[in-house]
């Protein structure tokens, strides 16, 4: 081929290729220019946004009265922001490079803070309070929100704390706490004064009443009898007033102690009716009873409190009804495991004006004009207030409706637990063999000869050996010298009282399981009970008590002869199913049970005494399953009931009863559990 033609073609191709390349390059350059333009615009926009955002957040932080501090992992201050410096009275240069806890004199025992700092090193944020010293040595309280500072590899290099000054709030809180403490102390003192004065009045008043009764039996002239009648009536009224004042003082301090017993409800309303029929015998007022309860409707409730409310309401009705009738009604509604009892007391008395109705349940308020010349209604104005509070304490509510000049009706409704416990067991029917034979005598500590006689007679009748101590000191000496199954301890005694004696016995290392101590006391104050529990007393029997009450108590507390253990309470078939004959496994499980459950149960009892139902619930829930593992499914069920009852506050008594039942059964079962290890 012609070399020139070839060369021409080559040159032509090269030229075309160059043009093509130039065009591509030009396009590429243009494209690059556009990309560059848009990049620049984006960078400018982003820079502006960043700056605005920084300005925004900086101004937020600077205006928020929050002090910021950055420290490294060794607590060395890297940066202190202006507001923090201002808060602490330092210049930033004075702080940089210093160790935070040293410069601010943070005391070592602020464990919380140490824990939080440790947490932060693992990358967690936290909020806590801190007491810290300023440059001038002033103590400041700060609320700190601390978070880790991370480097680009995600490692914690230090922390940033945001500090808010809460010194003022802290001081205010302390002042308030002090004020509250003082107020409460004053209130306690006042209450103690009212209570003690009332008690003091009651003693001579009892003497007056007693002497009047004695006088009544002597030969008196007509006038003298009239004087005596007035004297006795006045003393009775005074006694009623004092009782009311004591009641309201008790109620006011939240110390209304509900003490449930099992009883047939219809008997209660009948006895109130009977009491007033006698009183109103010569009045033109008829007293009626309408009641749907039958003797089989056995309930568990505080009979004394319900009776008190009923007597109060019927007494009121009697006071303001001059003719017509008073109707006592009881409507019992069966609700499965419990009843709802609606009591109603209606009368044809003088009635209450409508705008007075809402004042009715207030303390010291009487809606009837006391200056009414024709009649003196008397009273403290506390009765309805007391009734109202009692009904509330029983978990119920009370209402009144009235038509002025025609009559009034009070109604109260309370929930009542059903019970199957038969109560028709009279003391005379109890045979001594029903009580466990005891290996050691019961120690009776009582200074009052009448009370001594009462208890000793009963014990003798039941064939229970007893020893007698006249005071606490004697009791302590006797316990130290001999062995007893149970101590019945009076509280108020000369030389040494029951609290001190109990404490002394417990300090000798004799605990409840080896020697239960039951207090015999007239006090129904919760705080007295609490004090007694703290001293190591296991239970109470309120004086005066009936023989069956003492008997029940003995049944719960008297230990049985070691040699004749009652039939095995542990469910053998259940144990077989769980352990399938593996005695070693069973033994180790029982060991664990013994090591944990009795101790936890004691905690539960303590929480119960402190009315800390959340903790009671928690512990019950925790130890509940353990009872199955030792073959006590019944106790597991009871723990469950405790758990359930804890949820409703009005079931305090139910909880207390269940706990003492579990305690009793647990104590009976422990020897069997130990035997199987």
């Amino acid at each position, binding site marked *: 081929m012609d070399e020139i033609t*070839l060369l021409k073609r080559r040159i032509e191709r090269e030229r075309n290729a160059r043009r093509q390349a130039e065009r591509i390059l030009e396009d590429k350059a243009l494209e690059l220019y556009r990309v560059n333009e848009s990049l620049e615009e984006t960078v400018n926009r982003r820079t502006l946004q960043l700056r605005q955002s920084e300005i925004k957040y900086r101004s937020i932080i600077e205006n928020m009265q929050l002090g910021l501090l950055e420290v490294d992992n060794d607590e060395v201050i890297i940066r202190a922001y202006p507001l923090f410096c201002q808060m602490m009275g330092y210049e930033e240069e004075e702080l940089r490079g210093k160790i935070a806890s040293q410069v601010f004199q943070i005391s070592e025992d602020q464990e919380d803070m140490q824990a939080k700092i440790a947490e932060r090193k693992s990358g967690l944020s936290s909020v806590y309070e801190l007491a810290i010293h300023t440059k001038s040595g002033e103590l400041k309280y700060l609320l700190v929100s601390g978070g880790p500072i991370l480097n680009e590899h995600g490692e914690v290099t230090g922390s940033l704390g945001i500090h808010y000054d809460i010194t003022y709030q802290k001081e205010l809180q302390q002042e308030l706490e002090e004020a509250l403490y003082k107020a409460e102390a004053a209130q306690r003192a006042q209450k103690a004064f009212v209570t003690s004065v009332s008690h003091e009045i009651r003693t001579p008043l009892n003497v007056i009443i007693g002497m009047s009764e004695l006088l009544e039996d002597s030969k008196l002239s007509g006038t003298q009898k009239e004087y005596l009648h007035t004297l006795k009536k006045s003393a009775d009224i005074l006694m009623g007033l004092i009782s009311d004042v004591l009641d309201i003082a008790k109620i006011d301090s939240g110390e209304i102690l509900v003490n449930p017993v099992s009883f047939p409800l219809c008997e209660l309303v009948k006895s109130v009716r009977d009491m007033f029929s006698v009183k109103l015998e010569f009045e033109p007022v008829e007293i009626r009873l309408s009641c749907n309860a039958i003797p089989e409707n056995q309930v568990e409730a505080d009979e004394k409190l319900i009776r008190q409310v009923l007597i109060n309401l019927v007494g009121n009705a009697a006071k303001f009804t001059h003719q017509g009738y008073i109707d006592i009604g009881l409507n019992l509604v069966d609700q499965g495991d419990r009843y709802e009892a609606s009591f109603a007391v209606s009368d044809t008395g003088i009635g209450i004006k409508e705008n007075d109705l809402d004042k009715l349940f207030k303390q010291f308020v009487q809606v009837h004009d006391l200056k009414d010349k024709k009649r003196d209604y008397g009273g403290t104005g506390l009765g309805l207030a007391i009734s109202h509070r009692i009904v509330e304490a029983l978990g119920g509510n009370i209402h009144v409706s009235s038509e002025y000049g025609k009559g009034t009706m009070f109604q109260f409704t309370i929930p009542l637990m059903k019970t199957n416990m038969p109560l028709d067991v009279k003391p005379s029917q109890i045979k001594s063999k029903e009580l466990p034979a005891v290996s050691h005598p019961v120690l009776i500590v009582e200074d009052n000869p009448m009370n001594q006689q009462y208890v000793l007679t009963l014990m003798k009748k039941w064939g229970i050996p007893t020893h007698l101590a006249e005071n606490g000191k004697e009791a302590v000496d006797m316990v130290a010298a001999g062995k007893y199954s149970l101590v019945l301890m009076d509280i108020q005694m000369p030389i040494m009282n029951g609290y001190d004696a109990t404490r002394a016995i417990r300090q000798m290392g004799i605990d409840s399981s080896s020697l239960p101590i039951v207090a015999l006391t007239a006090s129904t104050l919760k705080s007295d009970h609490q004090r007694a529990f703290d001293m190591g007393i296991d239970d109470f029997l309120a004086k005066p008590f009936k023989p069956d009450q003492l008997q029940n108590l003995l049944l719960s507390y008297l230990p049985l002869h070691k040699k004749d253990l009652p039939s095995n309470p542990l469910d053998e078939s259940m144990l077989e199913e769980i352990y399938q004959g593996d005695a070693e496994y069973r033994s180790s499980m029982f060991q664990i049970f013994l090591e944990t459950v009795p101790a936890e149960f004691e905690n539960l009892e303590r929480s119960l005494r402190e009315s800390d139902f959340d903790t009671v619930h928690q512990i019950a829930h925790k130890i509940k399953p353990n009872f199955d593992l030792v073959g006590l499914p019944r106790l597991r069920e009871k723990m469950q009931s405790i758990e359930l009852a804890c949820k409703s506050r009005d079931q305090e008594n139910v909880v207390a009863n269940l706990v003492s039942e579990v305690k009793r059964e647990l104590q009976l079962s422990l020897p069997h559990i130990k035997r199987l290890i």
Partner: protein
Amino acid sequence: MKGIVFTEFLNLVEEKFGYEMVDQLIEESDLASGGVYTAIGTYDHAEIVKLVTLLSEKVNIPVPDLLQVFAHYFSNYMVANYEPFFEKASDTFDFLSSIHDYIHVEVKKLYPDAELPHFAATKLSESELELIYTSQRKMGHFALGLIESSIAYYKEEIAIDMENLEEDGSRVRFHLQKS
């Protein structure tokens, strides 16, 4: 296909057989581009097939052998212009393993329209590497040449075993064994 393949191919033909052969290939192949190529342009892949096939006929060398030789030649250009890619890897296995996840990613940034073959590398042991080449261009032998050049670059002793996974050569397995 990127223009660089065409320009380098024609450079090789000129170097070995003279520009007359280049001219003949272009004139006789009836190419849409008219045989005018620039390294940065993009052209139909069929044109390189036509050119290689025609060359094979004229010089009586099989197409696979031509591709393999062309790959060696092409590698020189790559090393001269893109040495950093080679320097980044410590040895052949390392380099070949980086093709899919690194080199091709970078190429795509520079030439978004580039159509690249798929190179899946699996290290079977310290001394064994498996490479699966997948491409509708079916240029397995070109890939073989490039692998050989890489081994030469890192001055290693590695045996290559080549096996078609698809009959048409669209999937090829290379087994590399260090000695």
